[in-house]
Structures are given as C-alpha cells and as structure tokens.
C-alpha cells in the first residue's frame, strides 16, 4: 500500500468516524427526561374507563399501567383503551364483506417473520387515534390521510379503477368502529366523540 493510499484511507476513516460519533452522540439520542405527555378530557375518560371507571377522571389518560397483552411492560391507560377498541374494530371490519377489500392485510400473513398484518394495522391505527385524541405529537408516523387514501398517491390503496373510498364505505367503517365500541360497553357519549373525531378526517378521505 503506498503512502498516498494510506493517507486517503486515513482521511476517509477520520471523516466517517467523526460523522458517526457526532450522530450517535446527539441527533439520535433518546429523550431521557421527556416533557409531561399531552392529554385531553376524552383521553383521560378512555384511560379512566379501561381501569374500571372509578375515582376521579383527570390524569388517567397518560397514567402508565400494566399492559395485559405484553407482560412486564407498561402502557398509557388511554392508549390501552384505544387499542382495545381498535382491536375489536378490526375484527368487526374483517367480518364485514363490504370493507374487507380495503383491509386484506387483516386476514393475510405479512411475508417472513411472524409479525402479522393485523398487528401492524393495530399499532398504526392505534397510533393515529391516540395522537388525535390525546394531542400528543409524533405518535403516528404514517402518511397523511389524504395521501394515504388515494391510489394516485399511494398505490396500495384501491386500484386504478377505484382510486378513492366512497362516502358509503367511510360511513360503514365508522359504523363498524361504533359497533365494536358498543360491544365493549363504551359509553355512548364517548362513542359519539370518537365518531366526531373520525368524521373530522372524512374530508381528506372522501372527496
């Protein structure tokens, strides 16, 4: 190896080393002392409800409780309530022949590994609703609702022939979520607020 090659190699490694050190030490560092989590009366109510609906409501949305589906892990009570409703909603949707075409992944394995489409959708949908209900930021990392529900901007949705969702299908979807919440004995007042929330994005999905 010539002296010049050695010099080039040294410079290359030095540049890479400094870059990696800088990145790993600063920009990707996880926040060890986060700000208090944002919450809303609806998020607190959901958290309160999933814990048995006793005592004061305030503060129950962000309260960390044991995750019944993940032993040894904690979860925000509000998120657990939302995930429970979303999980039931996905079962109702999977049994709804009018909507199954939009959610084939619910009933199909997703490639290698053991993670299923159901699981991915459960997390993603829960993230979206949690962010909308609690006003916490950075929970949902997917596409915007408008981009996500149009075949021209997202080719996994619909087809060239049917590019967007119909209003009737959207109503059916909200109806399925409401049925799921009802079957879990969620109070009507809370279901109404969840419905309002879902309808707030209707304009981005049906247009």
């Amino acid at each position, binding site marked *: 190896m010539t002296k010049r090659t050695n010099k*080039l190699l040294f410079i*290359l490694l030095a540049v*890479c080393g400094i*870059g*990696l050190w800088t*990145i*790993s030490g600063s920009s*990707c*560092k*996880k926040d060890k002392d986060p700000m208090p989590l944002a919450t809303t009366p609806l998020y607190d109510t959901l958290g309160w409800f999933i814990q048995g609906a006793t005592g004061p409501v305030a503060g129950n949305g962000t309260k960390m409780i044991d995750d019944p*589906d*993940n032993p040894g*892990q904690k*979860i925000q009570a509000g998120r657990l309530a939302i*995930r429970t409703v979303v*999980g*039931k909603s*996905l*079962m109702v949707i*999977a*049994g*709804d*022949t*009018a909507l*199954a*075409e*939009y*959610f*084939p*992944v*619910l*009933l*199909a*394995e*997703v*490639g290698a*590994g*053991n*993670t*299923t*489409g*159901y*699981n*991915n*959708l*459960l*997390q*993603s*949908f829960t993230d*979206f609703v949690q962010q909308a209900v609690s006003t916490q930021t950075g929970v*949902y990392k*997917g*596409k915007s609702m408008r*981009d*996500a529900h149009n075949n021209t901007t*997202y080719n*996994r*949705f*619909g*087809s060239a022939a049917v590019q967007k969702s119909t209003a009737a299908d959207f109503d059916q979807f909200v109806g399925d979520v409401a049925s799921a919440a009802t079957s879990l004995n969620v109070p009507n007042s809370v279901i109404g607020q969840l419905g309002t929330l879902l309808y707030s994005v209707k304009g981005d999905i049906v247009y």
Partner: protein
Amino acid sequence: MTIKKGIKYTAISLFSLGFLLFATLIVHIAVMVKGKKPLASEHTQLARIDFSAAADPRTITEIEQSIGTLPGVQSTYYNPATHTLVYAFNNKLQNAAEVYQSQVTSRNIDALKYTVSAADAAKGCPAMDNNSFYGRLTKTVSSIVN
C-alpha cells in the same frame, strides 16, 4: 492537478459521502430500535370463515363456541348480517387451515375458508407499508441489535 486526478478525488469524495450518509442511517436506526420491546399481539392473526346464507345458525354458534375453546384462539366474532365468523389466534400455536379442517369440514356445513388473493394482499390499509426499503432495513438492523 490533472483531469484524471480530479475525477479520482471526486469519485472518492462522492463515495465517502455516500458511505457516510448510509452509515448515518444505519446508526440512526440502530439507536432508535435498540432495546425496543416486542409489539403487543405480535403473533396474533385473524382468519375468517364465510358461511352460506342457508347454513344452520345453531351449527354456526356451535362452531364459534368450539373454535373459541381451541388452544391459541383468543377471541371470536360472528357477523350474522354477512354470515362471517372471524377469530383471532396466536399463529405460533394454531393455524387457520387446521381450524377449518377440524371445525368445518368435519361437520359437512356449507362454508368457505376465506383466503386473501395475491392481488388483494398487494393492496391494503394505507397506514402501513413495511415492505419499503426503510421498513426492511429497520427490520434487519433491529434483528441485529436486539
């Protein structure tokens, strides 16, 4: 500096920059996924049995109850309007083909095990796309650091 040298240094610079950016991406992913706990319901899978409209409701109820007692089955849901039975199960402990075989075929009832076509599987809910380059890279890095 000759043109040849200029090209050489430009190529080295571009390669270094590309390598640095890629390494940055890998480190970023590794830092973010390190220690990440498994997702809830990681092995949960849904399956559906579509009954004909003429199927006896009592037999369907029987089947639903029987499926509910199978090992690994977590919950069941029957939609009488569409005659569909959905059940959630742990795919480490149970599989849909066996459930259909043992619960439906043996009873000689008119029903179909719903299977997703390849064309449909390529579509789906837009909130997720784990088959992207970033998604696959994240999965790979996560399996290395965890």
